[in-house]
């Protein structure tokens, strides 16, 4: 009789699109790449085909600074996905990046009880597979 060992739950991974590929390529290289409108120059995130300010469809990616301030957060206790069962509870911070966009990512190394809006944080890179690197935050 053999024992069936269930496969370990897999982390949900992003499926890059034509628009977002440079962002994910940057993550893998440890560079925070953001989409800028080639026409009006404004930055936008998440990557999208059309500029929400001037409707131009031309864009370019530029490396951006990784600092930011805390805009909001939650502590996820209930795992809505099997992979995150082992990680819960985990903090997800919503951060106003100095580069002018907002990024949602896990916050590590800080106790949730002491968090304050406007607190300075820094984005870091965590490789989770050969192709994919995900962002997370730490205290600046």
């Amino acid at each position, binding site marked *: 009789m053999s024992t069936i060992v269930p496969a370990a739950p897999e*982390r*949900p*991974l*992003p*499926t*890059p*699109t034509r628009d*977002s590929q440079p962002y994910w390529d940057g993550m893998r290289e440890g560079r925070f790449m953001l989409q800028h409108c080639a026409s009006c120059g404004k930055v936008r*995130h*998440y990557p*999208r085909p059309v500029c*929400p300010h001037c409707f131009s469809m031309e864009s370019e990616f530029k490396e951006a600074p990784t600092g930011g301030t805390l*805009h*909001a*957060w*939650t*502590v*996820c*206790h*209930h795992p*809505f*996905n099997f992979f*995150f069962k082992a*990680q819960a*509870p*985990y903090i*997800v911070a*919503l951060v106003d990046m100095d580069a002018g966009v*907002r990024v*949602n*990512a*896990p916050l590590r190394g800080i106790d*949730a009880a002491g968090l*304050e*809006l406007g607190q300075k944080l820094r984005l870091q890179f965590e490789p*989770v597979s050969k192709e*994919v690197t*995900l*962002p*997370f935050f730490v205290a600046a």
Partner: protein
Amino acid sequence: MQFEAFDASYLKRLKDGDIQTQEHFVAYFGELIQKKLRSRVSSSQQAADLCQETFVRVFKMVRSDSGLRHPERLGPYVVSVCNHVLISVGRTGYSGARVSTRLQQFPQFALAAEFEAPIGMFAPAQLYAQGARRHMQLYGTTSRHFAEVAVVTRRHAILNGNVVMNKPLTVEEHHASRMIADPFRLFDCSLESDGGAAVIVSAADRARDLRKPLVTVMGVAEGHPESPASIAQRPDLLEFGLAKAAARAYPMAGVGPKDIDVAEIYDCFTFTVINQLELLGFCKTGEGGPFVMDGRIALGGALPINTHGGLLSQGHVVGLNHVIELTRQLRREAGKAQVKDAEVGLVTGYGDMGDGSLAILRRAA
């Protein structure tokens, strides 16, 4: 336009598909129907769609074997095709796909699936939690305020009887319930239910002849948030489409927040109710927490809300149960949960993480 008698020969030509007669028919009645619809639906696009739908139905009927039952009443028949509209919804939120998987399947949330699921943000509870936390930090809103919404809603549900959650809930039980996504505890979250609901909207002149008291739609509007696809990317996490909708619906109805006797507020989360009370102008931004205290939103208070138990305690029927409850309130058929002398009521709806709608209804004199 040349007048033609809508007699038997006209009807026969119509049935046989005579092009000239058909064009005359569409032009003549199209104008009438458009005029009639323009006062009832907000967009000309929608009016054109309904007009087209009307002709599809009329031609189907005229060309069917049985034909029109009363050929002499062709005119009245055409303009009455859209007098009654059934709006129905059914959902298997409990036995079907649960909320965490459902979200990822919607194409409009492709960005959320690409950028938020991999970092552990799946469910509306998590995505709304960040806004709730920000509100707490900015304005001093507390879990005690959230609990008040949950407890009052449960009390109302028990009066209704046709509910999923029928046991009393205390503030202590709310505070002791397990954390889902801080600051949301279990009892801050709406139910995942199997259920159905339906309402019929009729033309006012038709509804007046019915046995039930007439409840009139005075104002209705919908609005969409900036960056509809992701809550996280909105300039203001706490500004939903409802704010834009309210600015249009109140003037349309000719009333303001002070005139509302009872409100059925889309309560996907306790905090979402507090947030909407602010967006609807019942109190100032940041004052929603204290506003719900001291019995104000309970039956007998200044603004009773969710008198049926809402999504939190009655069941999650996508908010159509809120429309039904408001209609019952204004018909004075709400039983033990009846708001005394309810004349004007408001109901809100939500969708896709922040699209907001509201309708203001009035009991006709």
